[in-house]
């Protein structure tokens, strides 16, 4: 225990204002830069160079785009529902920006005025707050689709709502094993569990959870392969077809802010947040205002852990972009099939499995620690293996083209062939 001293009421107020301002600014600049990163990475993947003419290496391109969007004409469809049409982008961007508030991004910072926690609001409801607000964000998309009075936008809005409803369930369920293990939904507590109590990042003991969370997060952020709500080729970019200039930009910012938050959550929930691996100097937690348990806080430690958090988050952002430019879009029925028939049963089964394992380990009297985590890791490896080698054998993504190779020669003797019916294999394989 280290007594640093709690900040006084005025210092607390100022520190919170500064934190809000810094976090907001950093998110907005990161989002702007992400639009550039997305374009550059997509270009490199396609053997192009991407925007590289505005500023050094194209670094000022986002600002040129922003300026362009500000001065462009605002158009309103004649039959659109004005009020909702204007409300929709606000409803999309607001929740996207405030969800970051509960994510701890560095170790506590000691200042002359007291110890300041590096999280905007360490809410006791933590993840529940994020889940609630991301659900509100969907209303923006649905409302945009409806208010545009355009059938393609409307379809996009419908698809978005159906997709969100399906995958929010899976998203929430993939997090339940974390709550069972950490015994808390506060993000700082979950970081502490990984850092100190378990000594193991939750991606290992809860591997399948992480996997399901990543898939659901892709669906929740409307990123490819789950971008059926936008679907340029089918729906003319769906819900934001009718939006121009800054209103379009707001949807754009919301998408990237959601992506950033989802990446930060992956890093926080499953990869130790701001924890630096194999180093105990950063293992600290605020147990009461101004009182730290564990290592001694220091300014350089705060900066170092902030860098660790940024690296982890940006890695997952890169994965988001990488996947987008690799995988083609799912068909709508594939999205629904994956959501209801694969993700939710898997998540439910995993909850039962982890719950049972925790119960057995507790009964066996194993102390909560590294060995406990390794036991869970072994169980999770089996579960992940089942998912990868059994469920992902034509049971995850089916469809008309699934399970076929193009016209080819004769089959080798003795190979069984399954007949396909609406993308699902029939019960019994048929011998040719």
């Amino acid at each position, binding site marked *: 225990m280290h007594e640093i001293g709690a900040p006084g009421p005025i210092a607390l107020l100022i520190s919170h204002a500064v934190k809000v301002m810094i976090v907001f600014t950093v998110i907005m600049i990161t989002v702007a830069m992400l639009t550039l990163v997305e374009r550059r990475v997509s270009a490199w993947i396609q053997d192009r*160079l991407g925007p590289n003419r505005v500023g050094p290496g194209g670094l000022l391109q986002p600002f040129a785009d922003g300026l362009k969007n500000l001065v462009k004409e605002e158009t309103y469809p004649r039959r659109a529902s004005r009020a909702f049409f204007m409300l929709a982008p606000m409803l999309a961007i607001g929740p996207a920006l405030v969800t970051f508030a509960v994510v701890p991004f560095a170790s506590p910072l000691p200042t002359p005025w007291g110890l300041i926690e590096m999280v905007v609001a360490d809410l006791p409801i933590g993840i529940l707050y994020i889940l609630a607000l991301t659900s509100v964000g969907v209303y923006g998309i649905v409302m945009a689709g409806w208010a545009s009075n355009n059938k393609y936008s409307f379809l996009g809005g419908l698809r978005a709502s159906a997709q969100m409803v399906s995958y929010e369930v899976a998203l929430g369920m993939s997090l339940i094993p974390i709550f069972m293990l950490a015994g808390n939904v506060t993000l700082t507590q979950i970081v502490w569990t990984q850092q100190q109590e378990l000594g193991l990042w939750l991606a290992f003991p809860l591997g399948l959870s992480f996997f399901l969370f990543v898939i659901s997060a892709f669906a929740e952020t409307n990123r490819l392969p789950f971008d059926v709500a936008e679907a340029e080729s089918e729906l003319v970019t769906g819900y934001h077809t009718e939006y121009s200039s800054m209103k379009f930009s707001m949807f754009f910012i919301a998408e990237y802010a959601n992506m950033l938050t989802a990446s930060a959550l992956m890093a926080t929930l499953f990869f130790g947040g701001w924890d630096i691996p194999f180093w105990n100097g950063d293992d600290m937690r605020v147990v009461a205002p101004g009182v730290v348990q564990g290592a001694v806080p220091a300014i350089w430690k705060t900066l170092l852990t902030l860098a660790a958090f940024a690296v982890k988050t940006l890695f997952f952002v890169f994965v988001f972009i990488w996947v987008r430019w*690799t995988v083609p879009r799912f068909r709508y029925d594939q999205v629904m099939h994956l959501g209801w028939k694969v993700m939710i049963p898997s998540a439910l089964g995993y909850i039962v499995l982890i719950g049972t394992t925790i119960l057995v380990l507790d009964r066996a009297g194993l102390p909560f620690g590294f060995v406990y985590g390794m036991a869970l890791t072994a169980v999770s490896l089996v579960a992940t293996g089942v998912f990868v080698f059994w469920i992902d054998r034509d049971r995850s993504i089916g469809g008309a083209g699934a*399970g076929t190779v193009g016209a080819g020669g004769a089959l080798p003797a003795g190979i069984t062939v399954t007949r396909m019916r609406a993308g699902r294999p029939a019960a019994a394989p048929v011998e040719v």
Partner: protein
Amino acid sequence: MAIGTRTVRRPVENTSYLRASLRGMALTFRHLVRPGKPVLEYPDEKPVLSPRWRGTHRMAVHADGRPKCVACGLCPAICPANCIRLVPGEDDQGNRYPVVYEIDEFRCIFCGMCQEVCPVEAIHVGQDYENAEYTRERFVYDLDRLMAQDHDVTDLWDPSDPRGE
């Protein structure tokens, strides 16, 4: 099912969305880090044109600044797009010269037959493609404009070496 095609079903054991996606991601990552993108950074680097590449026209001039054109009328006659307008004139010594010589570069199909047919090697198609304008009228090049062009001209097709080897 169409005649002659056969759909072979793949055994379930060999299908995997994850495996296929991961393989795809490995492929895109290899392209991501691949150095030396096959890209021409256009305004800074210009493409190398073939010597027989045909672009906008250029009128050759004599040393004293007169156009070499003798207004024989062969180029408007052969032009398949009908884009050359020629009004011939004659000076005191009986030399024919073009009073009006206009080429509508919008109508032109850049076949280069005007250059092939010209008996005095006056009109040429050239090695030029950066010819954006603000109005459509500006694309009708008159005689002064054609004579003022200074880009390289296109090599004629050589019948003894049809492939340009």
